[in-house]
């Protein structure tokens, strides 16, 4: 079997006396969409925060492309190509579309001894990217707060595509979206897979992730209770697992 893109081994995390993760193993292969499912408090967010460098694990190892890695800040996983999208928290509402997409990694040009933002280039790139995603946004100058929820997700996904992300972590990307918009986001996730980008799709709604996922991982109270290839299971089987746990 090929080396997985990311492998987390025997991850433990305590918050005071609460044992939030109890030795979880988790892996994502290349160009794979993994659905991470579980109820509130199952440990999904904690696992993802560890993988995105926001909090350190108390025990356990993380391997990226076969090499052990230690994440000290969100910058470290980003350098490797792991991007995390938290529930609607990843965009700055008053900043416009292109400033959001290039936030922290602005395109610059030299004017004399100074480096200034290359606004024309950023706008052009954004229009191309959104076109690739089949998305029409009135203008890259529009503040993100004027966009719909689905369009905001598209902004974030466009960011991942531009920066050649290897793994995109989406935290409840379909929450609070209309059915039509949720559908759109799922289409974009499939587009990511075709572009060779792996994806962790976190949700408490199994039906949202089932159509696009390659594999479903179920957490319950800090323990992994299922890790099933979609081709070897059914929605009913997983649902029973979640309910009976």
């Amino acid at each position, binding site marked *: 079997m090929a080396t997985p893109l990311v492998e987390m081994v025997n991850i433990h995390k305590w918050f005071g006396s609460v044992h939030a993760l109890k030795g979880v193993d988790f892996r994502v292969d290349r160009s794979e969409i993994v659905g991470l499912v579980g109820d509130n408090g199952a440990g999904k967010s904690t696992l993802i925060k560890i993988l995105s460098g926001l909090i350190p694990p108390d025990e356990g190892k993380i391997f990226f492309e076969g090499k052990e890695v230690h994440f000290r800040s969100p910058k470290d996983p980003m350098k490797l190509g792991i991007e995390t999208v938290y529930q609607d*928290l990843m965009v*700055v509402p008053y900043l416009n579309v292109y400033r959001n997409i290039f*936030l*922290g*990694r602005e395109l610059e040009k030299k004017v004399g001894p100074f480096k200034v933002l290359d606004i024309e280039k950023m706008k052009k790139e954004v229009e191309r990217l959104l076109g690739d995603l089949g998305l029409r946004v009135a203008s890259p100058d529009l503040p993100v*707060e004027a966009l719909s929820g689905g369009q905001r997700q598209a902004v974030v996904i466009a960011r991942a595509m531009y920066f050649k992300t290897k793994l995109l972590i989406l935290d409840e990307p379909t929450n609070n979206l209309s059915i039509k918009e949720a559908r759109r986001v799922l289409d974009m996730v499939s587009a990511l897979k075709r572009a060779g980008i792996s994806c962790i799709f976190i949700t408490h709604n199994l039906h949202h992730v089932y159509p696009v996922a390659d594999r479903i991982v179920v957490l319950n109270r800090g323990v992994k209770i299922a890790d099933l290839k979609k081709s070897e299971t059914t929605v009913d089987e997983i649902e029973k697992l979640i309910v009976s746990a």
Partner: protein
Amino acid sequence: MGFRELGITVLQKKEISVTMILVATVLVFYSIQPRFLSSLNVEVLLKITPELGIVALGVTMLMIGGEFDLSVGSVFGFAPLLMAVLLGSGVNTWISFAAVMVVCSLIGATQGLITVKTGIPSFITTLGGMLIWRGLALVITGGHPLYFTPSQDFTYIFTGKLFPFVYSQLIIFLGLLVILQFILERHKFGNWVYAVGGRRQAAEAMGISSGQVKIILFILCSVLAGLGGVIQSARMSQAMPNQGSGLEFDAIAAAVVGGTSLFGGVGTLIGTMLGEFLCRVIENGLIIIRAPSYYFRLYIGIVIIVAVIGNLYIQRRTVRMRVRK
């Protein structure tokens, strides 16, 4: 771009409401007392506004970054006092000035570090700073003003009259305005300031160190406050212990009237400049029409509320107009 598009673009500028109020206020004072726009009075306005405007620039930058600085008025008083003491003991003018600027940046860095590291609101940190620096100023002077006697070249460079109507401090103010506005719009640091103030978690998730950005802004704020105070003292040849008291709220008022959000993430320095001129026009206009000086705060209060409501209303309308297109 059609007429409608042009209209939306203009209305979308956050400075629109303060501009309209400023023009209206000038016209009202002028119609009551034409001397308001006499060359003598216009010159006075252009002379006294910059030293306070410089402070408001720093306060605005910090507010866009999501923090407050209530200590600027006290630093505005403390910095020139310190410089007066140094000058009085025979230290060279430029060395004293450099030393005072270093002290100001240390004040900003300390207030910034405490705010960022402990996570207490900057409102509290700088409220403490406001009392500490003012208290220190009173301790040093025993409450009496000091002579402020820098070398002549210093006085000329910071307060000299260059052309009719144009004093050096106006050029310094406008120069700082252009540089800082350019940084906000065209440099990545500006993008980070808006992002940190607009939604800190998003900025941090994109690898931006919000603490660093904020500390830099705190330093900028204190340095500009000290600079404004030194310029005022150079203009008046004295440093007073109560110099700049109340300035912290004037500066926040100028920023808010000019479209800066109290919650961070939104604002422009052009708006603050217009807001600062508006405050000074009201102050000066009331004197010119011989209204009792007590009216000043009352009118500023009304203007703040009207301007902010105006901003909000216009913003909502234009966002809807653009989305509907």
